[in-house]
Structure formats: structure tokens, C-alpha cells
């Protein structure tokens, strides 16, 4: 299997466009997943009876085959980027919801108690005490969800999207390995860079965890 470097140098613009489109799809899904998970996690954390139901539901959604999800969404949103993002979002929920609930659970009762006793109202306690302290666990979920989404975007090639995934079908159909290899390498690179960026973001957001006594 040899790499046709001239194909790569001739297609840098395409590769860049596909990489950006790939990343956009994955990040939109994680952002949307967070938007849904954060409030749901608060509900699951506070209302014990709903917790099992919500976490169970996210598990069930995760087991639906990805192609089936896209097919089911076609009548709703058609062959669009929206379909891709909704599909991917469904898969992010399983880690984002679970990790956010666990993150909120991990906040020491003593600390919440202190916030209340100082006269902090519940919403402010949630935003300024509970979420910040849950952040490391939430971020662990965000990292998994991001890497998972980056690898899953390719599946959306079936509905004409799929970012770098288009390189796989292209190479496969023409029996020409170079685009496939380029697609794999770029996907991996994207996953590594995105993960590193999230580690850096967490470092910036949690200054209290840097300096150990």
C-alpha cells in the first residue's frame, strides 16, 4: 500500500475543508449534548426516582445502531448537517449525562451545606459551587464524548455528510488507498488535538487543582 503524495498535495484545500466540517459536526454534537445533559443531570441528581429512568434512557439510546438513527431522522430533518448533529448528540448523552450526575454527586455534602448556611440560594449554589466542583468529572465525560463523536462523524457519510468520512467512501469506490489513509490520519490527529485542547481547558478552569500542598 503506497501513498500517493501528489494526490495529497493536490487536495490540501479539500482536506482542510473536510477536517473543519468534521470537527464542526463533532463539536456541535458535544455542545448540544451538554446543553441537554446539564439540566437533565441536575434533575437526575436532585430527584432520586428520575435518576434511574434518565440514565437508563440514555443507555437505551446509545444501543440504537447509528445508521438506524440517521434513517429514522431522515423524515424529520432530511439529508442535512442537522441530521448528523442530532444523531451524534444522542450518543454523547450516555457519557455526558452519567458523568455530570456523578460529578454533582461527588460534591461534598459539607461544602453544599456551608454554601447554604452562608446564605447562598440554590441556583447560585448550583452555578458557583456545585458545577465548578463537578467540573473535573464532567470534563472527563466531555473528553470521551468529543473523541467518540470525532470517530462517529464518518458514519454520516451514508446521508451525504460525514466530514473526513467522505474520503473513505471515495477511496473505497476507486480502490485508491491514499484518501482512506489521509482520512484515518486526520481523524486521529483531530481526536488527539481536541483531547489535548480539552485537557488544557480544564487546567485553565480548575486553578485550585494545580497547586498541591
Amino acid at each position, binding site marked *: 500500500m503506497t501513498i500517493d503524495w501528489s494526490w495529497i498535495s493536490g487536495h490540501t484545500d479539500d482536506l482542510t475543508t473536510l477536517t473543519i466540517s468534521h470537527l464542526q459536526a463533532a463539536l456541535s454534537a458535544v455542545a448540544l449534548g451538554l446543553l441537554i445533559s446539564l439540566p437533565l443531570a441536575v434533575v437526575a441528581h436532585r430527584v432520586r426516582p428520575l435518576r434511574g429512568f434518565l440514565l437508563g434512557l440514555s443507555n437505551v439510546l446509545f444501543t440504537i445502531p447509528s445508521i438506524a438513527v440517521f434513517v429514522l431522522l431522515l423524515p424529520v430533518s432530511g439529508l442535512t448537517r442537522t441530521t448528523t448533529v442530532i444523531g451524534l448528540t444522542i450518543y454523547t448523552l450516555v457519557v455526558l449525562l452519567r458523568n455530570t450526575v456523578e460529578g454533582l454527586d461527588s460534591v*461534598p455534602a*459539607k*461544602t453544599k*451545606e*456551608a*454554601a*447554604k*448556611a*452562608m*446564605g*447562598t*440560594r440554590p441556583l*447560585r449554589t448550583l452555578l458557583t*459551587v456545585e458545577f*465548578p*466542583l463537578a467540573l473535573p468529572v464532567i470534563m472527563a465525560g466531555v473528553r470521551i464524548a468529543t473523541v467518540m463523536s470525532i470517530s462517529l462523524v464518518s458514519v454520516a457519510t451514508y446521508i451525504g455528510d460525514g466530514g473526513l468520512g467522505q474520503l473513505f467512501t471515495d477511496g473505497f469506490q476507486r480502490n485508491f488507498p491514499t484518501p482512506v489513509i489521509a482520512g484515518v490520519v486526520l481523524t486521529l490527529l483531530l481526536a488527539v488535538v481536541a483531547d489535548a485542547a480539552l485537557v488544557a481547558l480544564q487546567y485553565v478552569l*480548575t486553578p*485550585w487543582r494545580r*497547586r*498541591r*500542598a
Partner: protein
Amino acid sequence: MIQFDAVHKRFPNGTTAVHDLTLDLPEGGVTVLVGSSGCGKTTTLRMVNRMVEPTSGTVRVGGKDVTEQDAAELRRSIGYVIQQAGLFPHRTVLDNIATVPLLLGHGRRRARSRAAELLETVGLSAEAGKRYPHQLSGGQQQRVGVARALAADPPVLLMDEPFGAVDPVVRTQLQDELLRLQKELSKTIVFVTHDIDEAVRLGDRIAVFRAGGHLVQCATPTELLARPADDFVADFLGAERGLKLLSLKTLAEVPQGPAPQGDWTLVLDAARKPLHWASKDAELPVRPLKDTDSLLSALNESLASPAGLIARVDADGVLTGVSSREDIHEHAGRAHTEARVAA
């Protein structure tokens, strides 16, 4: 300042935590709530800032029924110190202390400068303000907890076993600091502990609780030690309650005179400060006592001293005279009788 009027607290699981409590806490004093675990002392404390709501009865702070005030606003007006400090791990020490001023809407700058001031008040360096709680020792964290409670200058301070988690040496230091602060600030303090020695050291008044949430006796430490209301209180105070009573009296009134001739001589330095006891062939250390020291330490020192004498010094450590074991003993006995007879 704080009034409990026929207050009853039953938890949903059926246990009665506080039973028909009527108690008036005067302004500007330290009231210590003591009792073994499960006696309702912490619940009593937590009803003051509505962390627990009474089942029946009224709790008033400054004459106002607490349940008629907004809970969050009420809590901001009452300082609260909890065991192991309960600091926010994700905020710097300075921002921890600034919590309540920020909630009250004071600007960030004003809140921080107030916090810096308090850091000094509780005996921490300005440098400690930039650290995070986990970088401090347990004793330092507890000081931050006190500073945080004082930040909005509340008239009332609730302290729930604040020094329970630190070692005895640090605990004594923190107790001394609290007494020093209280002399300056004259807050109305409610202090919960299960340690009777801590209660005797800190309390202007001590309220003893019995299992089931019954208040058994509320009195000054002297009164409590001299005249426990019943066997339960007497047992709780312990077999050495007579000695504890002596810890509350000073030796100022014990007569003193020049050191008599004997086998042991008190050796002084050039400034007339006691150095040690000396006999023909031995030397023993001396621990000079001031007028403000307790009768208990005088009794203790008179037993340890070879001549049965204690060395008395002034504030500068210069010898003023000696007192005999007999005089101390007699005074201790008289202090006891007076406390027990006093109405």
C-alpha cells in the same frame, strides 16, 4: 438576643431531637451547648439560622421570629462556623472569607479588602490569602472558617464543634484566639461541643443537654460545677469537677510572703526572676505563676514544687513572693464552699 420559646423538633423518622426547649441567650455572651451525641445540641444551634425548622414553638433572633424572615437573608446576617471549616475547595482563602460580603452585594474589591483585614484578625499571613484551602493545615483552615463567619460583621455567631477536628495543642491555641477575639468583638456566640473542658474554658454560660433533646441545666460554669442540677449533669462534668472549678478561679487572693528558710532555696537571676529550686545537691525546675493564673495551676505547681511553695511573679516575670501549699489548699476549699453556698 436569641430566644427559644417552647421549641420542639421531631424529625420525619420519628426521633425527637429537641424537646420543649425554652431558653434565652443574652446579648454579647458565649453560650456553650454541651451533651453527648444525639442530645439535640446541634439541632438547637441549626434552628437559629433555619438550617433546621422547628416542628413547633418559636425561635427569635433580635426579637424577630426567624421563620418570618427570608432564610437566605437571615443566614447572611448570622455567622456560621462548622467542623473541619467546610471551606470551598475551589476558592482561594481570600475569596472564601469574602463569601458573605459578596452575597450581600458589596463589590468584589471591598469584599476582598475586608477579607484581607480579617485574615490578620484571625492571625494568618496575607500570603495565606492567595492559597487554596487544601494547602493549609487543619488549624489554619479553622481560622479561615472563623474569618469567613465574621466577614459581614454579624452580631450572632454560631459555632458547631469548630475545633473538634484539630489536635489538642492547636485546639487550645484556637480557643485562646476565640477568647481574645470575643473580648474585642463581643458577639453573641452559640458554641456546640461535646467536650466539657472546652465548654468550661469558653462559656459564659453552659447549657447541658440530655439524650432526647432535654435541656437539663443552663448556668455559668462556676454554678454548674459547684451545683450540678442532678446526677446526670454531675456525671457529665466528670469526677474532677472540683478541680475544674478551680480552673475558673485565680490565685490573686492567695496570700504571699517572702520565701522561708528551708532545705530548698529559690534561685533568682540578676533581674529577680526565678530560675530554679536548689538544695545542697539537687536542682529542680520552677514554674512561676502570675496573679491571673488559675488556682488549679497553683495547686498543681505546689504539688510539683519540692518545698511545697509556688513562686509568684508580676507581669514582667519578677518575683513578688511565694505562697504555701497550705494557703493554696485552704483557698481552694473556700472557693468551693463559696461557689456551692452562693445563691
